[in-house]
Structure formats: structure tokens, C-alpha cells
């Protein structure tokens, strides 16, 4: 190890201990376990800074934080999966004694042998771990893929397809067309007015129309079709731009959350 690395390490350790001591003494002792809470706040701040240090360059602190995160989240999800799926959803339907052992309430509908089916399928799925019996896991997998596809197909077809088609049936000429004269005289230019509404309706219609043209693969994009496709890709790009802008906002919010933690909970500056 280089000397400079050792010095940095030592400084970080000293700062950590200092923060722990100061934080623990700042917390009210009457609430109890202030040494532990002081440690937790300091450790959280250390992890935040360790991850942020990646922006300068890759370093051991970042690697430590990353590996810790990966390990903890893997363990957390495993426990969560066991307690919420197996213990809470399955066991109360299978066995009274097991339900009593795990202290979960019995289901009102009572025990049902039907629920042994998912147990068997689950065990078959685990056969994936076996080098020779791996092929068996394809059967439950086929069941999962098949049922989800069937379930989602109807839902998506209705919500994302048919309802979306009917949503494009928007008034393009206003709610009541009485000729060009009344139309112009009733024109309202405010943000919630008729003109803006009509414009957005036109954008919806043209967006759907040209977007579909762009994703039409059976015809080369030339001539009028090419123009439609170009408008389509422009509209797609504007959508992605909006999405990107929103993402920037989201990421800044997360940064604000972290900095508020550092300045507020840890350093108590605000």
C-alpha cells in the first residue's frame, strides 16, 4: 500500500471517530442508546460521502460502500421474500402447526390442498440449481411465462391498446363546430383556453399517427411516408427529451435528499 493511501485511511478513521463522539454527545442521552444512534448517523454519512467520492475517482471507500450495499440488499430481499411470501402467503394456507410456529394468523378460508401446487412448482423451479435436473425447471417457468402473458395480454390490450385508441378520438375542431366565423370569434388564447386545447389535441393525434408510421417496418421510409416517419422520430425525440429533463429533476431531488441528510441530521447546520 502506498504511503498516501495509508494517510488518507488514517484521516478518514480519525474523522469517523470524531464524528461519532461528537454526534453521540450531541444526541439527548435521555432517549437512550445514544452511542448507537451516534454511530448509525455517522456511518450513514460516511457511506453517503464514500459513494459520492466516486465522482472524483474510483477508490477503496467507494468499493467498500458498493459491496456493502450489494451484500445487504441481497440479504434483505432474501429475508423479505421468505417472510412475506412463504411465511405470510403460503404457510397459513398449508398447515396449522407451522402457522402457529411462525405466529401468523390462519386464513379465513381455511386450509386448502390446492395450495400445494405452488409448493411443488416452487421446488421444481429450484431444480435449476441441479446440473442434471436443470431441465425440470423449465416446466414451472413455462407456467409462469404462460400465465403472466395471458394475464397481462388482456390487461395491456384493454388499457394500453383499446383505451388508448379511444383516447385519440379527440375533438380537433372544438366541441361544437358552427362554421369558421363563430370559431374565430370564440377563440380563447389563455393556457386552458380552446385554442391551446385544440392544439394539444392535434399534437396527440399527429403524435400517435406519425409515431406509428415510424415503427412501421414493412415499407421503406420514402416520400410522404418518409416525411411522416421523420415527424414521428422528432416527436419521439421530444418525448425522450422531456423524459430526460424529468430524470434530471429526479436525480437532483435525490441529491437534495442526501445533502439535506448531511447538513441536517449529521452536521445539524439547518
Amino acid at each position, binding site marked *: 500500500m502506498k504511503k498516501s493511501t495509508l494517510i488518507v485511511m488514517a484521516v478518514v478513521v480519525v474523522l469517523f471517530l470524531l464524528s461519532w463522539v461528537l454526534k453521540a454527545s450531541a444526541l439527548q442521552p435521555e432517549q437512550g442508546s445514544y452511542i448507537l444512534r451516534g454511530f448509525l448517523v455517522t456511518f450513514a454519512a460516511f457511506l453517503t460521502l464514500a459513494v459520492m467520492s466516486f465522482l472524483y475517482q474510483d477508490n477503496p471507500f467507494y468499493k467498500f460502500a458498493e459491496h456493502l450495499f450489494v451484500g445487504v440488499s441481497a440479504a434483505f430481499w432474501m429475508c*423479505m421474500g421468505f417472510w412475506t*411470501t412463504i411465511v405470510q402467503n403460503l404457510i*397459513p394456507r398449508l398447515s396449522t402447526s407451522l402457522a402457529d410456529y411462525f405466529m401468523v394468523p390462519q386464513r379465513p378460508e381455511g386450509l386448502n390442498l390446492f395450495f400445494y401446487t405452488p409448493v411443488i412448482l416452487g421446488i421444481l423451479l429450484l431444480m435449476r440449481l441441479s446440473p442434471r435436473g436443470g431441465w425440470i425447471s423449465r416446466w414451472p417457468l413455462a407456467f409462469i411465462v404462460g400465465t403472466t402473458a395471458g*394475464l397481462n395480454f388482456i390487461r395491456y390490450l384493454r388499457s394500453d391498446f383499446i383505451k388508448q385508441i379511444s383516447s385519440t378520438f379527440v375533438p380537433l375542431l372544438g366541441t361544437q363546430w358552427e362554421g369558421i366565423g363563430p370559431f374565430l370569434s370564440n377563440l380563447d388564447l389563455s393556457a386552458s383556453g380552446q385554442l391551446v386545447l385544440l392544439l394539444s389535441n392535434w399534437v396527440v393525434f399527429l403524435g400517435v399517427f406519425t409515431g406509428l408510421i415510424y415503427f412501421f417496418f414493412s415499407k421503406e421510409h420514402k416520400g410522404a411516408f418518409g416525411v411522416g416517419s421523420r415527424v414521428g422520430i422528432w416527436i419521439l425525440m421530444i418525448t425522450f427529451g422531456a*423524459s430526460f429533463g*424529468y430524470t434530471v429533476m*429526479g436525480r437532483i*431531488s435525490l441529491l437534495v435528499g442526501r445533502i439535506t441528510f448531511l447538513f441536517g441530521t449529521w452536521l445539524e447546520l439547518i
Partner: protein
Amino acid sequence: MGKRHWILLGAIVAVIIIAAVLWLFPKERWGTVFSLLLVFGGLVALLLRSLYAKEVERRIIFLFILVAVAAPILFPITFTEKPTAVVQAVFDKIENLPSGSTVLLSFDFDPAMAPEVQPMANAISRHCLEKGHKVIFMSLWATGQALLSQSLSDYILLGFPDKVDGVDYVNIGYKAGNEGVLNVIVSNFEKMFPTDVNSVPLKDIRIFDDIASAKDVDFIMSIGGGMPGPKEWVLFVGDPGDVDVGVGVAAVVAPQMYPYYPAQVIGILGGVKGAAEYEYALKDAYPVFADMDTPGLRMMGPQTLAHIVILSFIVIGNIIYFRGRRERKQ
């Protein structure tokens, strides 16, 4: 003029500016003004450099963002937020439901997403309780349940000491199964949630006296941004059960929710901006909430400054790119 002269000139200008600020502004504004000067001064300097096609190091950009975000947190800057139609729609829905209606709030997020969506979850919960609606809290995310219980006890219920668990609100917690959970509760709550988080059987909870399924709820608000989340609520409950659904989403997925508005979702709160607008509408309508903590509105200061910095860097980057291209051509 040599390098030394430049440094001297810079120092003199800096001293003059500092003196001017100290003289012109009251003491409590110094922090804000200095941090703004630092950010904008730096941006102008980089802009001037960019005219000579000098590239900016990545870390400089990170530093600017850090300052732009940190400064308004230390020295708060707030803006007024006029609610947009999509946010107002959710507000009006909750406002216009007769008092005593049942509202279901689903906290479908984890700690990583919380800074973005927690403010709106808190604001909407408070609005529902203040309006006298009966609120069913739940979560489709395992990590959401802890957040839900914590925010109920630490923030939301603090302002409502006389609300009774099981009568005015109930927390039925989390159940594993993602959209499968939704598929069941659209016809029967009790099958999926036999008890609430305190192990009280659902049939002993008064809110559920005339609520058998999610169809019987007057309004559903899903707050989240991942999978399962708002979109699944629309697909598996809102559309098939014909229930009004509103969504509060992390900014990343907000554009994907717009196609469902207004036919399938009645309103959208997108990211912190949506939360800030909602908080503003709430404060505007209820004097009770005048002193309410408004994290959404508070976050808009850092947001605005950070966005200005990012926009400036887009301009600077483009100038560098086109300058560089012209120089290469020559």
C-alpha cells in the same frame, strides 16, 4: 498584461464585490448572495473560457452542481408554485369528495425513491385526513411498509392527534405478490389482507364495514415510480374496477404516465415539482397548514439553481463543440 496582473485585478474585483454585498444586503442574505455570486461568477468564467474552445473537466461540473444544490439548502430560496392542471385535478378530486369518503393511498416506493415522492405522499395524506376522509394506507413494496409506518407516526399523524386508528385511517401494510395483490383486492380485500399491520382482523375494522374490494373505494392514489406502481394500479384496478385513480410518480416515469391522462388517471404529480405544486395548493386552501413543513417547496430552490447550472453547461458545451469544430476545420 502578465499572469500576475490578472490575479491582482481579480483580487481587487473580488474585494470590491464582497464589500458591495456586505454594504448592500442585510446580514441574513449574505449567504444566499455569496453562493449565487460564486455559481454565476464561475459560470461566466467558464463561458468565457469556452469561447477559446477550452474543455471543462467533468469534476468541475460535479462541483458546480454540488454548490448549486447545497447553497439553497443552507440559505433557503423559495418560489411560489402555481398548480398545473394535472396536479390541480388530484387536489380538486380530494377536495370535492364528500367528507367521510374512503381514499386508498398506496406507498409504492423504497428509501432510494423517497426524497422525491415522500413529500407528495405526506401532503396528500394530510389533505385527506384534514378533509375528513377515511384513509386506507398500504404498500406494494416490501421496503415501503417501513417507510409508511414511519411517516405515519413521525409526520402525517402528528397534526391529527384525535384521528383514531381503524376508524379514520388504517394501515394494512404490505403483501408480496406485486400485481397479483392488485388482481385480488380488486374483488376482495380480505383475501389478500386478512389483518392490518397491527394484526387486527379486517372485519373488525370499521372502515371496511362497507368496503369489500378496491372497487368500493372512492379514490385511489398510488405514489411510486417503479414496478409495481402507479401503472399497475391503472391496469389492474383503475380500468377493470372503474375506480378513479390518481398517481404521484418519481420524475423519471412521469412522461410515461401522461398517455393515461385524463381518461385513465385523473391527475399526475410528477416528481418534486408536482409535490411542490400540491403543497402550495394545500397551503393556499387551508390556513391550518400555513406552518406545515413543505419539503417539496423547499426542494424547488436547489432544483431551480441546479437546472440553471445544467442549462448553462449545455450552452457552454455546445459553444466548445462548435468552436472546436471550426478550429479543426481551419
